[in-house]
C-alpha cells in the first residue's frame, strides 16, 4: 500500500512539473502511465476524464479520482497534492524571482519556444482521448458537432458537452442499433 502511494506521488509529481502549457499537455502521458504502471485501462481513464469535464473549476481536478480508486481518500489527497503542489511551488518562486529581475527577452523567448511544444502535446492529448472516445459514426458526429459549436458560437462549453453527452446517451439507450 505504501509503495503504491509513493509510486502515485512520484508519478503525479513528475506530471505536474512536465505540464508545460497546462493540463492537456500531459493527458496522453497520464493515460499511458496509468495504463502501463497502474493497470487503469484507457476506457476507464476516459470515464474519469469525462467526469472532470463536468466539474466546476479546472477540469484536471479529476486526477484525484485515480488516487481514490487506487488508494482511497489518502490516495486522493496525495495525488491532488502531488499534481498541484510542485508546479505551484515552482511558479511561486519564479514569480518572486521575476519581481527582482523584471522582464527580459529570454522570458518571451522561453514562452515562444514552449508554446508550439504544448500545442503539439495538446494534439497528442486530443489524439489519446479521441482514440478511445470515437468508436463509431455517432461519437464522431457528436465530436464534430461539439467542435463546431464551441468554435463558432458563444455557448458555454459545459452546455455543449452536457447536451451532446445526453443526446448521445439517449440515442444509444433507445436506439442501440441505430449507429
Amino acid at each position: 500500500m505504501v509503495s503504491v502511494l509513493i509510486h502515485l506521488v512520484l508519478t503525479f509529481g513528475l506530471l505536474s512539473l512536465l505540464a508545460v502549457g497546462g493540463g492537456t499537455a500531459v493527458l496522453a502521458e497520464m493515460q499511458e502511465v496509468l495504463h502501463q504502471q497502474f493497470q487503469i485501462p484507457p476506457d476507464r481513464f476516459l470515464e474519469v476524464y469525462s467526469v472532470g469535464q463536468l466539474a466546476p473549476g479546472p477540469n484536471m481536478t479529476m486526477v484525484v479520482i485515480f488516487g481514490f480508486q487506487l488508494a482511497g481518500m489518502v490516495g486522493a489527497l496525495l495525488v491532488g497534492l502531488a499534481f498541484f503542489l510542485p508546479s505551484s511551488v515552482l511558479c511561486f518562486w519564479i514569480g518572486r524571482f521575476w519581481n527582482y529581475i523584471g522582464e527580459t527577452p529570454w522570458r518571451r523567448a522561453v514562452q515562444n519556444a514552449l508554446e508550439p511544444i504544448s500545442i503539439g502535446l495538446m494534439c497528442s492529448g486530443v489524439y489519446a482521448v479521441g482514440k478511445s472516445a470515437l468508436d463509431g459514426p455517432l461519437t464522431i458526429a457528436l465530436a464534430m458537432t461539439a467542435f463546431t459549436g464551441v468554435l463558432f458560437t458563444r455557448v458555454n462549453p459545459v452546455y455543449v458537452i452536457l447536451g451532446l453527452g445526453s443526446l448521445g446517451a439517449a440515442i444509444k439507450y433507445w436506439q442501440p442499433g441505430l449507429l
Partner: protein
Amino acid sequence: MNELAEPAPPPSLWEIFLEFLLIGAISFGGGIVAYQKILLTEKRRWLNDDEFMACLAISQTMPGLNAVNIAVLTGDRLRGVLGAILAALGLLIPGVTFVLVMGILYLQNTDHHLANLLLAGVAAAATGLLSAITYRLGHRQFNHFKSLLIVLASFYLMSIMSLSLPMVLLIMVPISLLLFRPKA
C-alpha cells in the same frame, strides 16, 4: 500604472479564499482565467491590467495549470505565502469535492449502464471541445513554418513514436529554444 484612485488596502486572507472559492465553484466549461481577470482587475481591483498580464505571462511560461498558477502568483502578491496557498485551495476545492463525490458514486454503483452511456457521449463531445480549444490556441502556430514544425515534431514523438513525455521534452525544448532564442 496611472491609477488615480488610492490603492485599495490589501484584502484579508479570508476574502482571498472566498473570492477564489467562488470562481472555483461557478467557472464551468473552462475559461477560468477570464473569470480571474474580472475578479482581480474589475470586481475587486486588487491588481491593475499590467500586473495581471505580467502574472498571466509567468503562468503561461511555467508548468502547471494557468488558472492555478495565476491564483498562486496573485495570492502571493496580495498576502504572501498564505495568500498564495488560500487562493489556490479556494480555486481547487469545489472541483475536487465534485469529482470525488461523483467518482465515489460512480465507483460504488455497479449498475450504471445509463451513466456509462452519458460518460461515453460526454467523452465524444469533450474530444470535439478539446480539438476546438487546441485549434483556437494553436491556429497562429499553424501559419508559421518554424512553429508548425515544432508542433508536428512534438506530436509525432509523443503519439506516433510513443516516446515518454520527459523524453519528448528533453528533445524538443532545446531545439525550440534554439529556434526561438532572442535575437542578439
